[in-house]
C-alpha cells in the first residue's frame, strides 16, 4: 500500500487529501465561531434592500483564508513529497 503513495498519482492524491483536510479544518473553525454567535451582526429591523447581515465579508474572508491555507499546505506537502 505504501508503494502506491510513492508514485506521482499517489503524491497528487496525498496533496489533495492535505488540501481538503486543511480547508475542512479552517472552515470548521469558522462554523464553530459562527455558531458561538460571532461574525454575523445583531438581529435588527430589516429595511430595503434587505441585505442579510449573516452573509457578510467576515464569513467570506474566512472561507477564502481557508482556501488559501489549503493551497499553501498543498504546496508545502508537494514540496516535502518531491524532496524540494
Amino acid at each position, binding site marked *: 500500500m*505504501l508503494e502506491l503513495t510513492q508514485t506521482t498519482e499517489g503524491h497528487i492524491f496525498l496533496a489533495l487529501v492535505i488540501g481538503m483536510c486543511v480547508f475542512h*479544518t479552517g472552515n*470548521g473553525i469558522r462554523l*464553530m465561531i459562527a455558531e458561538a454567535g460571532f461574525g454575523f451582526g445583531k438581529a435588527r429591523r430589516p429595511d430595503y434592500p434587505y441585505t442579510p447581515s449573516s452573509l457578510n465579508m467576515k464569513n467570506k474572508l474566512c472561507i477564502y483564508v481557508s482556501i488559501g491555507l489549503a493551497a499553501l499546505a498543498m504546496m508545502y506537502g508537494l514540496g*516535502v*513529497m518531491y*524532496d524540494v
Partner: protein
Amino acid sequence: MMSSIMRESHIMKIHYLTALVAVGFVIIHIMVRVMQGFSDSLLFDNVIANYKSIPYAIVLEAMLILISVHGFNGLRIILLEIKQGRVYENAVTYGCLAAMIVLIAYGSRTIIMASMGMV
C-alpha cells in the same frame, strides 16, 4: 436510533470537541515529523521506533480515537442526509458505530503491539 440514546446536540458537541483536540494533536504530530526527513521517516525501522516512545504512541493513539470518532460521525451525517427511512437510518448509525469501534480496536492493537516490540 442514536438520537434515542443520545441527543443530536450532544453528538455534535463530541463532534466539535474531537475536531478541535485532533487539530492540536495533528499539529504536534507534524512538528515531530518535520524534525526527520520525509523519505527517512517512512523507513520501517524509523516507523516502528515511533511506537516505542510512549508519549508519541499516546499522541498517535489519541489521534486515532479522535479522528475515527469525528470521521465516522461525519460519514453518518452525510449518509443520513442522502437517504431517509427508519431502517436505513438505524443501519447507518449502528454501521458507523461498529466501523468506528473496529478501526479503533485494530489501530490500538497495532500501536500496542508495535510499542511492545511484537511487530
